[in-house]
């Protein structure tokens, strides 16, 4: 199997953008190609698009060839769009990795994009009802905010986690986001500000939640041979695991504060890559809500189960703490354009490894990173690993 590296990364400003879906694609495409001056676009043989719901948000499907046309790419090996809701971007990277690892593709563009803001926000928000089971949980208004609010309620109930601890996650991520010029929100906030912001779904306030965001991000992946021609700073893919807990509907969730799917995904990830939390310099994790990051500390093994609140309280997830979590500002600061988020995380890894981020959010000397996405109501968890050093051998299976 061939080693695969990210050789270039590009991103648009995230936010409520005065830009169409196509504008975002073109911006991210230009950014990633500008990041890869040695590349002849003719060498791109494959295109992997991450997109969640263009069918509803922008009334467009069959989006992969549209991206190809907009960016002048002449695909001759693999092309498709990947959807797994909030993790669509990471899943697209995974497929590009597999395709290059086998030799089917040599150089691939992976582009994630979502346009979620329109003048009709109630309608755009309606489009989130169908991420869960729209026939059974949809009519009950079961979208992410009330669901993650219940997760928070159960975690507080079972482990004594406090609203202040939740707020501290936002405080940390806002601090780093304030140094990220591409983030939707670039302002530091205090615990008081988080607690005092508008109540969305109690106990979660507005600042406990990530936003509806427009944005796109892109990376170029290449085989080892091609990577050498294209960059001096390849970011090697270490592989990844992925897990679903046999759940889509509320009935299958069991106890909301236990994310057994993530626990299993982490175990598979560590087993396949030989990594453990102490060998990881930083993690970009899916903080769609503050409570998510707290549970992720626990299930990813950064701390004991139930001690996620304490972990942030003691500053252990800051840069310089036990493990730097979301030095890019996370979804809370960047916003969460579904198809782009997983690729934005990969972009952050590339920038960190190159040292091309502001000093105060730079994880000095970072060489190993993990990225995590959940999708939907945490029904699924997805993890990947990256390193500055080329892995000797990648373990794909048992």
């Amino acid at each position, binding site marked *: 199997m061939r080693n695969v590296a990210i050789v270039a990364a590009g991103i648009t400003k995230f936010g409520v953008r005065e830009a169409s879906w196509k504008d975002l694609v073109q911006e991210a495409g230009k950014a990633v190609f500008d990041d890869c001056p040695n590349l002849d676009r003719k060498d791109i043989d494959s295109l992997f698009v991450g997109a969640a719901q263009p069918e509803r948000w922008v009334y467009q499907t069959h989006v992969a060839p549209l991206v190809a046309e907009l960016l002048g790419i002449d695909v001759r090996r693999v092309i498709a769009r990947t959807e797994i809701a909030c993790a669509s971007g990471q899943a697209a990277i995974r497929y590009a990795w597999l395709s290059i690892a086998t030799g089917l593709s040599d150089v691939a563009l992976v582009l994630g994009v979502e346009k979620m803001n329109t003048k009709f926000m*109630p*309608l755009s*928000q*309606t489009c*989130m*009802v169908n991420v869960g*089971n*729209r*026939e*059974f*949980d*949809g*009519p*009950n*208004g*079961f*979208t*992410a*905010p*009330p669901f993650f*609010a*219940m*997760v928070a*309620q*159960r975690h507080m*109930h079972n482990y004594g986690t406090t609203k202040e601890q939740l707020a501290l996650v936002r405080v940390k991520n806002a601090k780093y986001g304030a140094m990220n010029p591409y983030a939707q929100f670039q302002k530091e906030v205090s615990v008081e500000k988080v607690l005092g912001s508008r*109540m*969305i*779904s*109690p*106990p*979660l306030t507005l600042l406990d939640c990530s936003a509806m965001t427009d944005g796109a991000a892109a990376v170029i992946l290449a085989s080892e041979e091609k990577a050498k021609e294209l960059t001096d700073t390849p970011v090697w893919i270490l592989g990844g695991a992925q897990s679903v807990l046999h759940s889509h*509907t*509320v*009935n299958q*969730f*069991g106890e*909301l504060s236990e994310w057994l799917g993530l626990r299993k995904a982490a175990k598979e990830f560590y087993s396949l890559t030989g990594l453990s939390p102490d060998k990881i310099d930083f993690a970009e994790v899916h903080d769609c809500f503050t409570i998510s990051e707290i549970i992720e500390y626990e299930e990813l093994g950064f701390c004991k189960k139930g001690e996620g609140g304490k972990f942030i309280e003691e500053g252990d997830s800051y840069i310089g703490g036990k493990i730097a979590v979301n030095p890019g500002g996370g979804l809370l600061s960047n916003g969460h354009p579904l198809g782009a988020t997983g690729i934005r995380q990969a972009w952050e890894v590339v920038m960190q490894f190159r040292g091309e981020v502001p000093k105060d959010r730079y994880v000095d000397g970072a060489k190993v990173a993990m990225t995590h996405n959940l999708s939907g109501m945490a029904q699924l968890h997805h993890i990947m690993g990256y390193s500055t050093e080329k892995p000797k051998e990648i373990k794909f299976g048992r």
Partner: protein
Amino acid sequence: MRTIKLPDSVELPTLLDPFDQQEPSGPDATGIYDFYRNLAEGDLTTTKCKDCGKLNFPPVIVCPNCLSDNLEWVRIPEVGELYAFSVMALGVPAIIDGYAPFVVAIARFGNYPDEGIQISGIIFDSKYEELKIGDKVKWEIVEIQGPGEKKRYWYCFRKI
């Protein structure tokens, strides 16, 4: 019985309507139509596998546990326990947006997980502050009026 009135002016419901078409036959037919028929008759029901005994929710036409299609309809116990709850204010399907904000909850009925189920539901008649984990709730039927003369049925929770 609580009533939700959908606007008549939405001419093209399938793209916007969060409720299943709930038809017994025709291209919109659903294999679990009995669930809706039972709702119309006042019962919240689901399927139980006659081969392996597994209780499923949502109801199914094939048992995900043993792949049998030998299923029976069973009534969900009327009284359950509030497991978790919050408030839904944003992102409500646009055509029922007028009913927000309301309490969204998860309640457990029967002996979950082995002989019971955990389901979502709206609580219209209590405020968030009036509820606590462990409260007894019962399910009750909701009539969905419209579009036009169409009548469909759903359920919600009420604190008792």
